[in-house]
């Protein structure tokens, strides 16, 4: 699956979501099974089946995190009683910067 198609599917699940990190490049580098896993995980986040973590900087912000192999990481952020905000996908180094920035 290419990232364009994935973006459409994810937008259908989460509505108005932003994509950050090197989403396109990293998504294209995932194995097909991992791509499916990511989309299933997004659905499960929406269905309240994934463990949330709360930001230490912004109490109203929660996130869901997932690791793919040793290098790729994803973060999905959401307002507590509101909308999903951003789906971030990148290498672990940039994930760590992002986690610090978000207060997770």
């Amino acid at each position: 699956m290419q990232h364009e198609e994935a973006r459409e599917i994810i937008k259908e699940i989460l509505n108005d979501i932003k994509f950050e990190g090197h989403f396109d490049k990293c998504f294209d580098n995932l194995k097909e099974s991992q791509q499916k896993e990511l989309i299933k995980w997004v659905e499960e986040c929406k269905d309240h089946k994934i463990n949330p973590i709360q930001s230490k900087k912004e109490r109203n912000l929660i996130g869901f995190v997932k690791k793919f192999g040793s290098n790729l990481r994803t973060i999905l952020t959401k307002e507590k009683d509101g909308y999903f905000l951003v789906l971030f996908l990148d290498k672990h180094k940039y994930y760590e910067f992002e986690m610090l920035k978000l207060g997770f």
Partner: protein
Amino acid sequence: MYYHKMENLITLDMLNKARNELEGRIFTRLQLNILKKRLQKKELNTNEKTYYYKYIKPKLKAMLSFLNIDEINIKGKEYMIEDRITKAVNILNKIKKKHKNKRIMISGSFLFNKNYNDIDIFIFTKYDKEDYTKGKIHVNFLLENAIDSIFFSSLSEVSISNFYYTNKNEFDIGLSNVLQNYELLINSILNRENYQKELRDFLLNTEYISTGVILNTKQLYALRKKINRIKMISNTLINALILGYNKNRLNNLKRYIADYRKLLKQYKSSNLNEYIQTYEKVIKLAA
């Protein structure tokens, strides 16, 4: 403690093996005996010191110049496997050629553990760069300000580098940082993901806030093998928070407990339950 390259790169074992080759050709028998004494960390008398600094050390320096070795800083030699030191120095010299004028450090299990996965190399740069792996070598680029972090202080305790530095040994680790470490660690374990990095950060921070000790990489490696259950991790956090923070700061936990109770109504998540139970125990013990 810092060691100069020569005392690090030559071991007693190497001296004993090469004695026949060295004696008469490069060193006299007396000089070799003095070098041996030095390597055994025995005190040299005034005459021996003169011999050492006037004749022995310059010869060693000249010999090592063939190997293109300069400015090698070895810390925590007592924790290292002897033959890994020479290997690490060779790797460092190769990396130096590729990354000229950069501050480079080798650390991690390669230096002290018989079995290792990667050889971790850290290069400190002004601007961030993409890490890379070549065979077993894993090159990590870190920003120069990382040298002031507790991570660096831990990492450098058992390390070989091409630069000198003064380790910072006092850190202000905020309560929210420790909670973030803990929550991510528990989350990773529950998600059945690799949690070694989270565990390392957690153990480093909790040990520091509770005892003021900065664990080195070998100590962290050993501790990581022992701590493998969620309850052990939660108890480690409880002890660290009680010892490391006063009651007023710990009262902030009440806010997190209230938030997580609310979240639990929407998400029936085991991580939230664990956080709540742990923070409640801390508040009870701190009261």
